[in-house]
């Protein structure tokens, strides 16, 4: 039989975000895979140049709905370095705390998705139920379940109370108990082990050569973690192990993530125990002096980097983002070589892909405007936005040509 090329995406029921995989098959075996990205490109970097530094925090936070704190932290760290701001220690501890809580929610989410992709939906139901605990903690601490809005230039926007500290410690105890159970499942459940072992293998040398990051790299025994190698926020003051694994496959990636959950709980406890007294934020100037900085952050999916250049005004000259999934894309193609078509969903899921991050875009759903106002139809929404821009921004969009008329 000749080779067959199957296009999966950009729109496909199995994909959560638009991306395109062209898979060339010889029977059930994958010969070659071509990835096309960019369907989520929203021009965020350009948009950042046209907004103030403060507005940009909220814009970059919306690069991703899961690791939003990673992006805003990486961005503010760069701006703080350029402005020469010394963030109070308590602010750094708070930032780190939210970062680790975010990792917990992200890894639990991944574990559920991975379970779902291999038909183990009980794991999805369990992990996502437990994930609600950490989502509640994040909402209590920041006011939001996602896009926390806690970072600002010079520190964080909310302090933590004693009661909240006690509540978080209680929640961490429950989560740790549940995670121990998942570790037991991962190390003893034969169906899970057999389904994930030797699937999507990535040799150590390939992981290094192709520039894989995060748990994807660490599961191929690449001992790299920005939290330890290039410490930021409060990571220089907490003890934790970098989890690596030598399985080189999807099973290894699972073990790394559950292992990292346990380390995150340890970090959270240390942060809460040693939380310094004092302010959480220092006043930042509106205009940032000219300069440039490069900021690295270990997001749940791996190294997230931001480059910021300031020109002395209140708007940045340039903002450049590289999210971890972009670094892992080439590794996925390698993992799938000689693999089976049926393994495609779990192998792609195993890097915990986030294509919104990768392509850097904002998502806008234009159908509702909150429960109290009820739904709004497209026409009224458009009228509302034209009116809003006219009164608030002095821009008249009413002359904009509407196609199809």
């Amino acid at each position, binding site marked *: 039989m000749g080779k067959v090329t199957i296009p999966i995406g950009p729109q496909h029921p199995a994909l959560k975000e638009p991306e395109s995989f062209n898979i060339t098959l010889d029977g059930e075996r994958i010969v070659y895979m*071509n990835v*096309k*990205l*960019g369907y989520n*490109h929203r*021009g965020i*970097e*350009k948009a950042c140049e046209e907004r103030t530094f403060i507005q940009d925090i909220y814009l970059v936070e919306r690069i991703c709905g899961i690791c939003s704190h990673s992006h805003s932290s990486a961005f503010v760290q760069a701006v703080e*370095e350029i402005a020469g701001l010394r963030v109070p220690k308590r602010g750094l501890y708070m930032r780190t705390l939210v970062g680790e809580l975010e990792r917990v929610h992200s890894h639990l989410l991944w574990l559920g998705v991975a379970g779902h992709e291999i038909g183990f939906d009980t794991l999805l139901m369990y992990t996502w139920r437990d994930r609600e605990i950490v989502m509640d903690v994040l909402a209590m601490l920041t006011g939001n379940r996602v896009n926390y809005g806690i970072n600002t230039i010079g520190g964080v926007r909310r302090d933590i109370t004693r009661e909240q500290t006690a509540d978080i410690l209680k929640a961490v105890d429950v989560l740790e108990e549940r995670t121990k159970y998942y570790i037991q499942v991962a190390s003893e459940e034969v169906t899970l082990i057999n389904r994930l072992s030797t699937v999507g293998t990535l040799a150590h040398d390939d992981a*290094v*050569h*192709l*520039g894989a990051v995060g748990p994807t790299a660490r599961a191929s025994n690449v001992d*790299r973690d*920005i939290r330890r*190698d*290039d*410490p930021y926020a409060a990571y220089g003051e907490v003890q934790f192990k970098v989890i690596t694994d030598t399985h080189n496959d999807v099973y290894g990636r699972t073990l790394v993530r559950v292992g990292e959950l346990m380390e995150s709980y340890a970090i959270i406890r240390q942060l809460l125990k040693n939380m310094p007294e004092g302010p959480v934020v220092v006043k930042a100037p509106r205009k940032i002096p000219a300069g*440039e*900085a*490069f900021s*690295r952050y270990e997001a749940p999916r791996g*190294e997230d*980097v931001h*480059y910021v*250049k300031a020109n002395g005004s209140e708007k940045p*000259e*340039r903002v*450049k983002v*590289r999210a971890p999934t*972009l*670094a892992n*894309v*080439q590794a996925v193609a390698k993992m799938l070589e000689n693999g089976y078509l049926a393994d495609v969903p779990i192998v792609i899921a195993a890097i915990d892909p986030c294509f919104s991050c990768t*392509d850097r875009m904002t998502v806008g759903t234009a159908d509702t405007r909150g429960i109290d106002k009820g739904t709004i139809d*497209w*026409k009224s929404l*458009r009228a509302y936005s034209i009116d809003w821009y006219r009164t608030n921004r002095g821009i008249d*969009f009413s002359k*904009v*040509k*509407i*196609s*199809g*008329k």
Partner: protein
Amino acid sequence: MMKEESIRQQLVKKFPILENTLRIQRERRMWVDVPAARFMEIFDYVVKEMHFIVFCTITGLDEGVHLSFIYHLALENGIMLNIKISVPKADPVIKTVTGYFPAAALAEREVMDLLGAKVEGLPEGGRYPLPDDWPLNQHPLRKDWKPETPTITEEK
């Protein structure tokens, strides 16, 4: 800062022209401006002899008459060397580094699409991140590029 200083000395000893452009911004952050003509030679030395084997990304900058590109490299211990080159905007040709880092391919396609760089030696491939029908002469990250007023399609 001991390690950073010894890296600085090693690099300046090998390439004396870098003496005035190499700066240590802070712990683990080093920046250097490199003449475009000698970029490959210096890049090769930094990667192969000095083991800057972590490739973060390439940042493209529109600096008026020049386009600049910063190659963000790091050692495994976290020390970063940010190598910057500038080429004339009228003929912005740079050489590919995919021979060292295959992952650089997407970063290079990105500066091609968004800033209009020409990358010599980069194998043929699809565009990233702009769509296939995006005009070839429109580079959104250039400072003189402004978006056109959008056309909105109204639902009937």
